[in-house]
């Protein structure tokens, strides 16, 4: 119950952020379209695939613990965390390219939104990975059973939220023009 309140509060915050971006774009369409062309759309798409697959691995971890298979659950969680790491590395390359080109939050309105939205999401990915790592370590120690595994379900829900946010962020920032 508590995790759902937390998740919905996060969704509310990101929702306001997404709509702020959309309406800021409505008043600066040419600037947003021109700036968007300099984004690495391939990186954004690959990261979408990475997060979706990572989310699927978490589904498999939940399925494993429901069968009482702690070690399998830990393995699936490790794979999901690994893909979370891939997401971060790809994003860091993107940030590095932008910062190296002299782009910052103050470059223009588009980049102010692009950088703050993606950095905000980036921090949520890190938090999600920390949560999944804590759950994975407990699963590895046999801390969950088929009957009692609320921690796994809670960590999984948070990670799916991180995935869901990127599923909206990708078309909004990288595709819509």
């Amino acid at each position, binding site marked *: 119950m508590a995790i*759902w309140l937390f998740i*919905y509060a996060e*969704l*509310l915050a990101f*929702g306001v952020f*997404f*709509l702020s971006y*959309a*309406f800021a*774009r*409505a*008043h600066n*369409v040419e600037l947003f*379209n021109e700036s968007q*062309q300099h984004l690495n*759309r391939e990186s954004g*798409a690959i990261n*979408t*695939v990475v997060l*979706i*697959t990572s*989310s*699927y691995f*978490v*589904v*498999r971890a939940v*399925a494993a613990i*429901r*069968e009482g298979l702690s070690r399998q659950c830990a393995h699936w969680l490790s794979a999901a965390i690994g893909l979370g790491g891939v997401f971060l590395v790809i994003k860091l390359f993107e940030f590095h390219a932008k910062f190296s080109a002299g782009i910052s939050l103050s470059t223009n309105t588009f980049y102010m939104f692009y950088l703050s939205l993606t950095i905000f999401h980036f921090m949520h990915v890190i938090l999600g990975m920390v949560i999944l790592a804590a759950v994975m370590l407990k699963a590895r120690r046999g801390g969950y059973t088929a009957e009692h595994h609320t921690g796994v*379900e809670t960590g*999984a*829900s948070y990670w*799916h*939220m991180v*995935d*869901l946010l990127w*599923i*909206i962020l*990708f*078309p*909004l920032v*990288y*595709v*819509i*023009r």
Partner: protein
Amino acid sequence: MNNIENQRSRFIRPCTRVWIALLVLTGITYGIGRMELGGAQIVMLVLVITFIKGEMVAGFFMGLRKTSLLWRAIMASWLVIVGGGIAIAYLVGLK
């Protein structure tokens, strides 16, 4: 063994199909972006695809399709408000 088979058919297999569908829909969204397609109809298509993806993640991965109607309604409302707001903002930008 029956329980395991039951859980696989009721939980894992639908989620595997959803995962594949999500990848396909992501490919379509990327293709639209790569071709730099724009305009109201294309953007509405992208938003509908995004809504479907969001509903899939919420319903199947998060398991909301098997919880109370209230939680599902909140999630669906969030997706509709955000997607609808983005659509309205896009149309405002066209004027």
